[in-house]
């Protein structure tokens, strides 16, 4: 033990051993937890509806969209854990609105018609500066934010659709070109 690394009550060797053991246990627990979370998400009856919404907002194009990025799992996590002040009721509110607009279960509406219905609902949600707090429009704005956040913080959204640039190495002012792709990093962090 070097003289500048005194840690009362625990030797350095003991610390390292404890750390390695703890890390291994944590990694194992995390892997199990991750797999379990994925299973739970797939079995969640809300998943199909959320996945449909996400895919309509950010579809596959030349890069994979929100469905392939598994954005629905993030949205459900955000709802269930109260991220950004959200709650599971928001999703039900949106579902009710879209089911009514479709006259049937929204998830069963064919692709183009589904996109048209959601686009109309989306336009109404953003028509006013602030929709009524308990309205379906307000609920949709929360859900949409979570879809966008879930996509652009996923590996697919951050690094395939946009440019993931962890170490820019320099700062410079440039002209914006038509083929410029934003850096996903610019939007990381903050609040949902």
């Amino acid at each position, binding site marked *: 033990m070097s003289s500048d690394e005194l840690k009362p009550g625990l030797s350095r060797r003991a610390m390292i051993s404890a750390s390695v053991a703890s890390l291994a246990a944590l990694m194992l627990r995390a892997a199990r937890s991750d797999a379990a979370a994925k299973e739970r998400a797939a079995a969640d009856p809300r998943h199909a509806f959320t996945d449909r919404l996400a895919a309509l907002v950010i579809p596959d194009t030349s890069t994979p969209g929100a469905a392939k990025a598994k954005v629905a799992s993030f949205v459900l996590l955000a709802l269930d854990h109260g991220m*950004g002040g959200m709650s599971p009721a928001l999703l039900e509110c949106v579902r009710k609105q879209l089911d009514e607009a479709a006259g049937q279960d929204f998830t069963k509406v064919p692709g183009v018609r589904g996109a048209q219905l959601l686009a109309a609902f989306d336009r109404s949600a953003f028509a006013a500066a602030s929709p009524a707090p308990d309205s379906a429009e307000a609920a949709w704005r929360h859900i949409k934010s979570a879809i966008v956040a879930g996509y652009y913080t996923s590996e697919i959204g951050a690094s395939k659709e946009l440019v993931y640039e962890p170490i820019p190495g320099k700062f410079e002012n440039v002209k914006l070109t038509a083929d410029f792709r*934003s850096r996903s990093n610019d939007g990381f962090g903050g609040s949902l």
Partner: protein
Amino acid sequence: MAEFEAIVAGSGITGGWAAKELTERGLKVLMIERGPMIEHRRDYKTEFTPPWELPYRGFGDPKALATSKRIQRFAWMDEWTQHMFVDDDVDVYETPPESGFLWMRGYHLGGRSLMWGRHSYRMSPLHFESNGRDGHGVPWPVRYQDVAPWYDLVEQFIGVNGTVDNLPTLPDGKYQPSMGLNAAEQRLADAVRSHYPDRRLLPGRTANLTQAIGDRAPCQFRDQCARGCSFGAYFSTQSSTLPAARATGRLTLLTDTIVESLEYDAPKRRATALRLINATTGERSTARAPLIFLCTGSINSVSLLLRSASADAPRGLGNSSDLLGRYVMDHVKGDWVLSTVPGIDDQMYLGRRPNGITMPRFVNVAGQDADFLRGYSYQGGSGRATWKRGGEEAGIGAEFKQKLRQPGGWQIALEPNVECLPSKDNRVTINFDRKDKYGLPLTRIDVRWGENERKAAAHARKQAAAMLSLLGGEVITFGSETRPPGTAIHEMGGASMGEDPRNSVTNPYNQLHDAPNVFVTDGAFMNSSGDRNPSLTYMAFTVRAAAHAADLLKNGAL
């Protein structure tokens, strides 16, 4: 425990400097840190973590934000850095509702030097004269020219990027090349300069390297400093002062150890020992040295001295003046104004500067020209809207996705740093009836904004809106109410310095009048807050005090 010539309590911005200076001046030093070890590079565990590997993608655990981080969340904390901040359920304190003081802290090696904002501005001559001029607070016993050489030394060691501007309210220093302005900031700088001859908008001056110093590499423009920087590109204890102190071979570092109080020998007028608590086991011990530097952070150092009350110092060690714990300050923040910036959508930037803009004080400079005392400066920054705007505007489908590939519109923000008028009633005390998990009586913080702060903040909002309106965009003013004290994380004062022991706690070299072998060199010694980030000033005074202390010790005067 081994013999030491000096003990430094605290390992943050000033503790690191004290350890460096004292060891380099030949002293055998024990540095005590209450939190755990964070080793440079090795322990920056989230530095390279992408958001998709975090449980909440970087937005934070809502449960933690509502409970154990309910206060710390008001710092620039995120999911990558939340482990750097204390647990609000464990590291408790008291504050009355009328104050609502937010105390943001990091208890680990390096303290807040790892998470600090890095803005590094010299106080101006004006700031050192203000208490004497308007009668608020204890008059400073030193002037700008007394500190200037120490500012030089500190700036060159830590590495500050900035411009030389020859402004009376913002003295220039020894700078590395500036990080510059982006297109929107330059546009505002030009507009302000042409419209207000007495105002200048400048690139921020931050302790981020634009040129290497030793094995510290230049900034990589990641703007994620608070995760820790393996490049060593910003100043922290770990990257800068600790390696220097270790290189002397005279530093012993003791982590996970809380300083409970100081023992006092009244006849000799000396503190003789530090009473310690092992933060892991609760075991008590003592450490002794002829020289003691308190660098645990302003409120903690004041609390430590107040807890050191004894029969010979019943109101706390160093408190014969009854001023210990008084004149506690912060800067008023939160009154920020934002504007869109039209007409430059063909301009962009690459890289993320860990920096922004500053505008030095322009009110009450030559004389009293506003209906409040002192003044304010601004900081802020600009950028283009990111992909996040997708959650705030209409659109779905391929076209929507394509649109978010490109950046959104420009925005620029100004936020004032309002000087807090020193008030005797803004105070830190100890509630000996309530204890924390370590058995320490709770610190109570009662700092309130007064009418002067409110007037200055309102003035700053109005002026910011007027300047931003020059850009021709949409101006949005946020927060008609200022945020609670503590928000700026510039808490300071409580051990004011002065020549007269009856009217001050520390002398002009940061020594307690009542125990001259105790130096208080974190922000507790500050007599006024000025209108700018104070850490550079704490560092300059620490180096100055350490040089003085080493001389005194060498001459047998301690």
